[in-house]
């Protein structure tokens, strides 16, 4: 473990000095050509943004919000802000307007950098944000900001390791916001100690950026790590599989960090293509799998040779894939492994900057999330007879706390230990295996978290719903089978239903109650970001089980309705 961590501005300065002419960022423009920014170009852009912030009287500790899809300018603004000692607040572009308002208001952002396509959302709420001083349109204003001739005048000496670099909101778009405060030390310790996974990465490597940049996994693993190591980042043209494949082939991508659902879609796509080629192709593919499986038993790994065509489809230069954000089905890891691809699984939370443990090329144990990164202590709280308990973590990557929310911070950090809310155990070799969750958060296959409280808060506004319980159920069929989806159990308010039915001269049947409840869930769900909306709902005519303090026993309700 290294204890001589550096701040983010120091890292960037060192990378610019070491890797100056090498490509740092790359994106395909409208004409089909890749626009590249070298490390020197990147550093100049970061300095220009810093100069602009200082001119606009943004000071150390001020919050600057960032609302945009993945693109080089996202990184310019992120580092430009953090470099001056201000705090970056990256936001999810998919947030609905009111959700966005709650987070912007809570953060007290003085400036917002927003892409042109998302401007209408911000314009609707900007007058209700008293702290907001300036709104910058990334598409229209950025060229002027970046043409500044002012260079290398921003000194970052005033930034210290324990200063907050970023606030990332994990929840609270409706209730009490939870903005995770990450310091320079939190982030940089994770970037440095991620070495066991990325030790063979360096100049010449190319990361394909597919996850949203505001996601902590992408920020640290997909943005900081390549920039620290002198590798480049190619922004995916879109999430369409043929675009991803094209980007991989055209730019010689070597690393991809993504969520389980994407790997599942890749695998499904490969299998679908084989099926479409007919019986013989299907039989040959099955034989190759069997042969690869047999050879693996003899400790021969020639999957890369047997499945050369699949490797060439992915560009032929992939060193490994990284998966995180949600649990991956071990069978996906096995299938990729048989085809000669390495998929490394990591584990962590936004609150832990985010990586706590990871599998490595030398220690890739399917079904586990590997060993703790150097400098991080992991232990199991109050293990049961099977050695399973809540995973706790301590280390330089643990967040400073939730912004303006000491109560929520106190709930999860005790005596320096962070309570992850995940259940797990260690195998005999010290690898962590996650077995479940003791917190209510729903983790979708796409790696995003949905907090039941937020969904309940919004849907409970319906006069037709007396009680509501939202939980994560596992999809049993379809392309998302095995991953979590948002489910709800509603207890109808029969008094309201009766008077409503009477008024509209309707017969109050079970079908009508089910249908109307669904309509209400849809109507109010529209206030939530699309991925937070309920996928499946049930009606309960009985009151939901509650504790002595009248809190719904979500765990039991989930158990009853999942089966």
């Amino acid at each position, binding site marked *: 473990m290294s204890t001589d961590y550096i701040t983010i501005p120091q890292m960037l300065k060192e990378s610019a000095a070491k890797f100056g002419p090498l490509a740092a960022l790359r994106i395909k423009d409208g004409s089909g050509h890749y626009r590249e920014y070298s490390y020197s170009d990147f550093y100049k852009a970061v300095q220009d943004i810093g100069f602009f912030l200082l001119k606009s009287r943004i000071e150390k500790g001020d919050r600057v919000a960032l609302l945009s899809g993945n693109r080089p300018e996202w990184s310019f603004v992120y580092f430009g802000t953090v470099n001056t000692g201000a705090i970056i607040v990256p936001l999810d572009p998919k947030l609905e307007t009111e959700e966005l308002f709650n987070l912007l208001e809570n953060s007290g952002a003085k400036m917002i950098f927003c892409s042109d396509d998302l401007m209408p959302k911000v314009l609707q709420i900007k007058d209700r944000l008293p702290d907001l001083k300036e709104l910058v349109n990334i598409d229209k204003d950025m060229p002027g900001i970046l043409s500044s001739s002012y260079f290398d005048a921003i000194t970052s000496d005033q930034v210290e390791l324990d200063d907050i670099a970023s606030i990332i909101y994990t929840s609270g778009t409706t209730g009490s916001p939870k903005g995770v405060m990450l310091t320079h030390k939190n982030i940089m310790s994770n970037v440095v100690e991620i070495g066991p996974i990325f030790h063979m990465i360096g100049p010449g490597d190319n990361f394909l950026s597919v996850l949203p940049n505001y996601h902590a996994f992408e920020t640290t693993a997909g943005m900081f790590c390549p920039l620290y190591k002198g590798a480049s980042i190619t922004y995916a043209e879109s999430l*369409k599989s*043929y675009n991803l494949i094209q980007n991989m082939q055209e730019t010689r991508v070597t690393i991809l960090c993504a969520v389980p*659902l994407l790997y599942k879609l890749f695998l499904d796509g490969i299998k679908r293509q084989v099926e479409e080629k007919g019986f013989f192709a299907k039989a040959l593919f099955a034989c190759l799998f069997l042969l690869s499986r047999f050879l693996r038993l003899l400790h021969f790994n020639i999957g890369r040779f047997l499945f050369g065509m699949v490797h060439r489809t992915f560009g032929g230069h992939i060193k490994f894939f990284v998966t995180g954000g949600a649990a991956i089905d071990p069978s996906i890891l096995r299938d990729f492994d048989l085809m000669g691809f390495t998929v490394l699984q990591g584990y962590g939370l936004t609150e832990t900057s985010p990586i706590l443990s990871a599998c490595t090329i030398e220690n890739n144990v399917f079904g586990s999330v590997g060993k703790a990164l150097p400098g991080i202590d992991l232990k199991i709280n109050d293990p049961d007879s099977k050695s399973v308990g809540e995973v706790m973590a301590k280390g330089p990557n643990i967040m400073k706390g939730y912004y303006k929310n000491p109560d929520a911070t106190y709930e999860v950090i005790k005596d320096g230990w962070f309570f992850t809310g995940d259940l797990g155990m260690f195998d005999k070799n010290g690898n962590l295996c996650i077995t479940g969750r003791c917190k209510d958060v729903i983790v979708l296959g796409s790696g995003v978290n949905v907090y039941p409280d937020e969904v309940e808060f919004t849907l409970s506004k319906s006069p037709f719903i007396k009680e509501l319980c939202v939980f994560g159920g596992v999809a049993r069929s379809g392309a998302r089978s095995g991953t979590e989806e948002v489910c709800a159990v509603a207890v109808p308010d029969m008094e309201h239903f009766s008077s409503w039915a009477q008024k509209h001269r309707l017969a109050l049947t079970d079908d009508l109650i089910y249908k109307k409840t669904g309509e209400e869930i849809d109507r109010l769900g529209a206030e939530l970001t699309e991925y937070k909306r309920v996928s499946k709902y049930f009606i309960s005519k009985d009151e939901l089980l509650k504790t002595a303090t009248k809190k719904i026993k979500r765990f039991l309700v989930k158990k009853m309705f999942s089966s």
Partner: protein
Amino acid sequence: MSIDQDIRSIVSRVIKVPEGEIDPNADLFKDLGIDSLLGVEIFATLDKKYGIDLPEKKIAKIRTLSDVIALVKEKAGE
């Protein structure tokens, strides 16, 4: 095979739900469990099949299979 049947067959294969179970007016996201990433994959498959470019931004506006069919027809007719 008509374009409607063709699209239904493509959607069925991507989301792994039998064709017969896909009601053209069912909510793809709520009733069939599609999420935005699967929506992108459906668009990508349709792009390749029909040589069109369905914009990802339209996914948020699509609710049913009928919407998808209408969009493909609109794009293919351009």
